[in-house]
């Protein structure tokens, strides 16, 4: 089970960030606390390590630039997830435009990048699973990942993506069917 970091840690981070003297310590603590969760969230969206590393660094730089805009209306980690999600989706959108300009199939290109990633080394079933995920539309992939891998409750996903719980459940169920169909069709 994956749990959100306790509010105590968030409070400690925010207290450090409020003072110029302790800002860097607070920012380091923020990165240290959330880097792995955000990395895997991003990685499952963009799929390759190199891209995930770029997006994660850009996410932390956005946070560094904009931390004064955090008003505490939501949990800190929800705010960080939103930034990371937007960064990842923007990255995928720019990649898609690039592939479209080069008259390439975006989904096929993403699959090729996954298969060529030195940090992707899966057994047959997991390989098919990630290939299937690569074929999902981005928003559906996002919902699938948050629910299937991160086991985020629908209410939290709803707050994160500003989507109704009903729509999220429907999206997840469609994604599960698509993934299973792909695996079945690509397994000897």
């Amino acid at each position, binding site marked *: 089970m994956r749990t959100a970091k306790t509010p105590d840690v968030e409070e400690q981070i925010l207290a450090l960030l409020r003072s110029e003297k302790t800002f860097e310590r607070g920012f380091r603590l923020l990165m240290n606390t959330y880097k792995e969760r955000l990395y895997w969230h991003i990685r499952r969206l963009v799929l390759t390590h190199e891209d995930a590393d770029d997006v994660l*660094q850009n996410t932390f730089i956005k946070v560094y630039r904009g931390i*004064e805009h955090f008003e505490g209306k939501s949990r800190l980690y929800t705010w960080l997830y939103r930034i990371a999600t937007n960064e990842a989706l923007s990255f995928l959108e720019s990649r898609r435009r690039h592939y479209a300009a080069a008259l390439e199939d975006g989904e096929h290109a993403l699959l090729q990048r996954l298969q060529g990633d030195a940090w992707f080394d899966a057994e047959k079933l*997991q390989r098919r699973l990630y290939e299937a995920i690569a074929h999902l539309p981005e928003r559906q992939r996002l919902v699938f990942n948050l*629910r*299937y891998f991160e*086991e985020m409750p629908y209410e939290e996903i709803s707050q994160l993506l500003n989507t109704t719980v009903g729509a999220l459940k429907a999206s997840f169920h469609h994604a599960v069917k698509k993934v*299973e169909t792909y695996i079945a069709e690509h397994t000897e």
Partner: protein
Amino acid sequence: MSQENIREELAGLGSTLPVEGREEGLHVPKGYFEQLEDRVLQRIAAEGIQRAPLKGTLRLSARQILSWAAVAAVLIGSIWLIRSSQPAASPTALPALTAEEAAAYLQEHPDLIRPEEWDAALIEEVDAAAAWDTSVSWELLLRDWTAEELEQLEL
């Protein structure tokens, strides 16, 4: 949401997707996470990335505080001087007269104005007219001149 719930949800959908081992296959280079904070901070420094000051952390140096105090003192002094130089309104002040009423009153009481004040008033009248209509100013200047005086001007 517990792992049991995702299992239950998948089972409810009739899905055979695995829960155990689902995360296997994606890896990261050794030491990647340990070095991440340093790499981000190095990039921030190298690219000169700035952040806006945090809310509620405005800090002024002693020199800035003195400067602002000096500016405030000058402003307060100026306001006090301006106010003290303005005549106080008298409760017995006469009701305001129009320009026509004042002129009519002075024409009826020419003894109230000394001759040099009439000259000054005439010059002011000429200057005021000249500011917007030069033909009027010439008429005002010339209307009382004799023919001989005009010839001497060689206009």
